[in-house]
């Protein structure tokens, strides 16, 4: 398939202006004749639903949680980037663009990233106007902090709850449109299939999780804003309900899935403590502003941290990367933590942990300042571990956190199925092979507030949309396939629970397609995943019925999709014979252990197409061109 990213020609600074001007418009009276389906109510979905409702479209918004306010964007802690240069420290749109392309290890599309940097400025203004209580200085102006992968302070924040406050801003805008009658909200409703008619996305089949009934919803376009797929790994920092089902079912209806192996391991999470563990808890990257990361120089040093003298500690990030120090990007910080633990210098009972130490910062700034900056994070750490991080260094370890891969979209955020748009983490577009901190919130809101309202109008205005009835054969086929899928899961009546399979799948993918990968391991993982999937369909036990609230059934459908996606992740990782960003192939590294890219052969987006059950998916390539930021070996030394 020839992939046309529809990137506007001409200078990158004017690309988005030009694209906006070239787009067709839908006149206000006509907008109300169009129904748009938005799946997901996080930052991208809520901001899109609100903005499209304000424009006058009829919007139906779906989320599986009991309220749109629960979406997992709410858990983002540290902040949101914007190129405001309020700090007079040399920031600019171009610098944010540059940092993001470099941070993504030259595997993102330049034009998209530039537009993201441009929109970042408007996002802050919009959110302030909505009443988002960003941190302020005494003079009343907005305060900033710094984040990994950048040498300027451009991160805006609301204590350690930035995601919560931005989401509540978008949620409130959404509820305002519900009140205005422009948006109809469908909570506790899960999309299980995409309806494609004459090659256009025209609707979804979604199951009401309370009554169990799958329903058909027809619209003129479908917008997926359903987040990432980190829960393939079972243990992740994602919410328990976060899933890939919507994007995966869209993939099976013809949308291409791009760069599935680009997953991000976040360096600062609370280490695993036992087998029962259900999820991992992130400690915001902002902690690396003031915390110093170290391990003992000696292997197997079991002394308490306060008994290890200064000269027997290895502040390995500061030692190896003097210019960025503890603020190197996430992939670099994570890999180095794994390396010191592999050397036997990890701390804590399991040996899988490193110290994040605030004693120097407390001595320099006082405990009160540290409490002001990170109080809620310290409280959370203490609640979980029963240790006081003001007195004892935190123990942290990397965990899966974000997925840069997702459905392939062009510059207009449209997938390879006309009328199917994909926003936020669910698409692949802006972060390349590694996302910088405080950029996920930025992308979700940029897509939802400032991009989709334009591009959807262009699609509607330039497309012939025939009337669709519920009885159309494509609609009935989707509906019956959803019903059959539910029946199948309920009818196996085997011995093992969904969670036991999910945990095992997660372990395979974490071991072989996690922080570092190699060809033999990936091949082995593909075999293991297939065998386990076979067992899943023979030996799964889903209790209860499909006619009421059945949380096991919900999970069973999601895990079935994780099996297939997990295999695709391994296949993609196997095909990409280079290391870049979060994708670290052991065979491809520099002499000092850094990722070695191969721009000559792999400077492309790998977009996989579904070819039927059991068949090898088809690999399509979108070449990446770098006219502005020239690919170089990323160095943070």
């Amino acid at each position, binding site marked *: 398939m020839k992939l046309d990213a529809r990137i506007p020609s001409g200078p990158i600074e004017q690309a988005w202006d030009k694209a906006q001007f070239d787009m067709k418009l839908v006149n206000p009276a006509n907008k109300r004749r169009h129904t748009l389906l938005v799946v997901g109510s996080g930052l991208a979905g809520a901001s899109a639903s609100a903005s499209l409702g304000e424009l006058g479209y009829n919007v139906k918004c779906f989320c599986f949680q009991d309220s749109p306010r629960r979406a997992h964007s709410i*858990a983002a802690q540290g902040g949101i980037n914007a190129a405001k240069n309020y700090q007079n420290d040399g920031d600019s749109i171009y610098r944010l663009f540059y940092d993001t392309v470099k941070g993504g290890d030259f595997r993102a599309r330049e034009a998209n990233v530039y537009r993201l940097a441009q929109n970042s400025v408007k996002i802050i203004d919009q959110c302030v106007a909505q009443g988002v209580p960003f941190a*302020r200085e005494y003079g009343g102006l907005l305060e900033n902090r710094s984040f990994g992968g950048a040498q300027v302070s451009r991160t805006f924040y609301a204590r350690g709850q930035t995601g919560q406050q931005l989401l509540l801003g978008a949620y409130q805008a959404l509820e305002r449109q519900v009140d205005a009658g422009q948006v109809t909200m469908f909570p506790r409703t899960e999309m299980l299939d995409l309806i494609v008619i004459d090659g256009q996305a025209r609707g979804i089949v979604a199951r009401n999780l309370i009554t169990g009934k799958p329903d058909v919803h027809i619209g003129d376009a479908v917008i997926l804003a359903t987040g990432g797929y980190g829960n393939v790994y079972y243990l992740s920092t994602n919410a328990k309900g976060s899933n890939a089902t919507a994007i995966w079912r869209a993939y099976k209806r013809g949308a291409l899935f791009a760069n599935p192996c680009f997953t991000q391991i976040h360096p600062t999470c609370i280490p695993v403590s036992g087998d029962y563990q259900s999820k991992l808890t992130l400690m915001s990257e902002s902690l690396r502003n003031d915390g110093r990361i170290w391990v003992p120089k000696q292997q197997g040093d079991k002394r308490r941290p306060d008994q290890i003298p200064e000269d027997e500690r290895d502040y390995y990030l500061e030692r190896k990367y003097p210019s960025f120090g503890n603020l190197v990007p996430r992939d670099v910080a994570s890999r180095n933590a794994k390396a010191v633990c592999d050397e036997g210098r990890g701390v804590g009972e399991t040996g899988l942990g490193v110290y994040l130490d605030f004693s120097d910062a407390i001595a320099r700034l006082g405990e009160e300042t540290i409490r002001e900056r990170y109080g809620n994070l310290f409280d959370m750490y203490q609640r979980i571990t029963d240790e006081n991080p003001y007195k004892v260094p935190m123990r942290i370890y990397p965990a899966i956190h974000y997925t840069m891969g997702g459905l392939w979209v062009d510059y207009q955020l449209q997938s390879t199925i006309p009328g199917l748009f994909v926003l936020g983490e669910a698409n692949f577009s802006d972060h390349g092979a590694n996302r910088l901190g405080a950029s996920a919130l930025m992308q979700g809101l940029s897509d939802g507030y400032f991009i989709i309202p334009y591009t959807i109008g262009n699609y509607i205005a330039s497309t012939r949309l025939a009337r669709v009835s519920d009885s159309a054969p494509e609609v009935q086929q989707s509906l019956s396939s959803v019903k059959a899928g539910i029946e199948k899961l309920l009818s196996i009546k085997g*011995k093992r629970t969904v969670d036991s399979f999910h945990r095992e799948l997660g372990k395979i993918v974490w071991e072989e397609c996690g922080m570092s990968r190699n060809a033999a391991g990936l091949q082995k993982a593909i075999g293991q995943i297939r065998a386990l999937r076979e067992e899943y369909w023979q030996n799964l036990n889903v209790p209860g019925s499909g006619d009421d609230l059945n949380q096991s059934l919900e999970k069973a459908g999601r895990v079935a999709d994780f099996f297939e996606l997990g295999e695709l992740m391994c296949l993609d990782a196997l095909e990409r014979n280079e290391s870049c960003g979060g994708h670290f192939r052991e065979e491809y590294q520099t002499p000092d252990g850094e990722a070695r890219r191969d721009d000559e052969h792999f400077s492309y987006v790998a977009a996989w197409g579904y070819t039927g059950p059991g068949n090898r998916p088809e690999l399509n390539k979108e070449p990446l061109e770098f006219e502005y930021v020239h690919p170089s070996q990323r160095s943070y030394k």
Partner: protein
Amino acid sequence: MKLTLTIWRQRNPGSRGKFVSYPMNDVNPEMSMLECLDVLNESLIERGEEPVAFEHDCREGICGSCGFMVSGIAHGPEPATTVCQLTMRHFKDGDELVLEPWRSRSFPFLKDLVVDRRSFDRIIQAGGYISVSTGSPQDGNDIPVGKEVADRAMDAAACIGCGACVAACPNGSAALFTGAKIAHLGILPQGKPEQDRRAVRMVAQMNTEGFGSCTNIGECTGVCPKEIPLEVIAKMNHDYLAGAWKERHKVVTAITPVTDWELAKK
């Protein structure tokens, strides 16, 4: 450690519910309350029984999905902690914990420990926002907000909408939830233009939903996982009084509560 979980089991709103006791023999003190339920559910499924339905999502205490009574206290005995972050080390070997759903007629029952909290969304729909459409507002720094003001707004904005305040209140009042949003927006300069209308409409919606009145008992703030201060209720009453007087000639219409799931789809 050993614990007994005595849990409210009820299939659906139409059936009769009852408490069922489940002995747990191997509880790790590092587990969270919800992980303890995960372990129980795994064993129930293996025994061919239906697992306990409970709500949860982020398990970091921020999404507001989880919540139930633990031996009579909303979210259990630890202050400022949701059940997803309530670790079992706070209980003693041999304890019996009684788990039951939020009880409020404004939170219709659904299954086991799950209730319907859409009434909270409708209170927000009734004015819990600042009316700015997406576009090109003024620069963020054009509206200076003093640090103390921003901090107070943030204290109120920290509400996660879990519903513990309602469950803990002997009157079943939602004043802490409603007051938190009225305070968050009303304290900030951006929220001033709609201050009167917001308070009047949100309070009307709260009453329409059937929540009880506030009599300043303070149980709500005591169980609140985000420690929303009681003063947000004073702010609500203040704004409501002023608004009710200034808007006395206007008719306030509340949103009709929808509780039936079949109806909600239409």
